[in-house]
């Protein structure tokens, strides 16, 4: 199982029945593949649909039904199409139960940087700042460390997405919960030690007891 699948399978367990959830583009969107059966969840795509469904059969795509990455999707029974004001009203207004986003850096305050690397990558924040500021729970799904080194750092050096403490960070090595006191190591992936995680983490990690083994959907 590769890193991304481990992450997606762990995040899937965070999705509660009868909730409204926004999945970011890329790795976060993989979470939908591992939902436990009969979890009645509605996925919101911020471009304007509640009740996002899988990709349609070839030849049955509609130009007016895409996800926030512009890819063709379907809509599930009970879906609603909404405009951008309603879509972001749901997000900012606290009506979105959870969002899952990718990350470039998370720091000891639980702050997330995920929208730009100045001078290298300036895609724009899209809906990320609204999602992190407004969703009830924010889950960061990202590989533990990247080409540039550690991604879980004492203090973000990249521009912040928001000054809101995210709810949970899920990587292929560990589940980390940002708290008032700092980053608490809650779970370790099967076969991974606390030292393994520390070796790839620049931030201070609080280890309260023996972390649980990360369950996977």
């Amino acid at each position, binding site marked *: 199982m590769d890193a991304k699948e481990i992450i997606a399978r762990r995040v899937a367990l965070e999705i509660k029945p009868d909730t409204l959830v926004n999945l970011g583009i890329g790795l976060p969107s993989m979470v939908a593949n591992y939902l436990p059966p009969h979890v009645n969840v509605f996925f919101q795509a911020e471009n304007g649909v509640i009740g996002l469904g899988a990709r349609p059969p070839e030849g049955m795509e509609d130009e007016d039904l895409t996800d926030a990455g512009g890819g063709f999707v379907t809509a599930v029974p009970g879906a609603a199409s909404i405009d951008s004001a309603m879509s*972001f009203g749901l997000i900012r207004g606290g009506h979105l139960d959870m969002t899952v986003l990718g990350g470039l850096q998370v720091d000891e305050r639980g702050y997330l940087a995920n929208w730009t690397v100045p001078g290298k990558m300036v895609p724009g924040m899209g809906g990320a700042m609204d999602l992190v500021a407004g969703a009830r729970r924010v889950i960061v799904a990202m590989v533990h460390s990247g080409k540039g080194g550690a991604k879980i750092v004492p203090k973000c050096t990249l521009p912040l997405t928001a000054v809101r403490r995210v709810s949970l960070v899920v990587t292929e090595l560990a589940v980390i919960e940002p708290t008032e006191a700092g980053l608490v190591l809650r779970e370790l992936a099967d076969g991974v030690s606390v030292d393994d995680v520390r070796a790839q983490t620049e931030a201070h990690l609080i280890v309260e007891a023996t972390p649980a083994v990360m369950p996977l959907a």
Partner: protein
Amino acid sequence: MKQAIKAAEAAAMIPDGATVLIGGFMGVGSPHRLIDAMVEAGIRGLTVIANDCGRPGFGIGRLLSGGCISRAVMSHIGLNPECQAKMIAGEIEVELVPQGTLVERIRAGGVGLGGVLTATGLGTSVEDGKPVVEVDGKRYLLEKPIRGDFALIGARQADYIGNLEYFLTAHNFNPVMALAAATVIAEPHHIVPVGVISPDAVKTPGALVDHMLERAP
């Protein structure tokens, strides 16, 4: 009853240097025939306010490649490398705005409000230079209203008096933008007799629409 006009006639109304709001999300729900006519007409120096810059050769990306844009106010340009390159080279000026803030600023401009108070962007680079207002102990950024000289709206169908109906994820910024410009030009896929669009399905009342393109060929 409105007269249906040709895309070239609509494009001829838009002078160099105009500020145009353009509906669509990654080209979904954008007025594509009008965009092509604007490129054909060789309009220069536009300020384009839109969710994104489309892709190279698609949607608003065509206006960019056509050299029509000098300034862009958008939430996301990441899927159009040409836009990022022109921004970094200083050929165009880009103001990046969080998506939910962008739509509310346009809504404020369209509905006669003096601005928007939002927590999105607090503590980030988006806050730079903006007043922070405290209301009942909570901090918000003051974001100013946006209006355009023209709003270019993509719709699924229009009736003879210009009532507009949108489909699925092609609503996005269109209904809000139709409120926020001196001149509103709608590009419907279909034009149907008055009464075909149910009053409950009208998202943009015909009273807002100044001009309507003839039906798609």
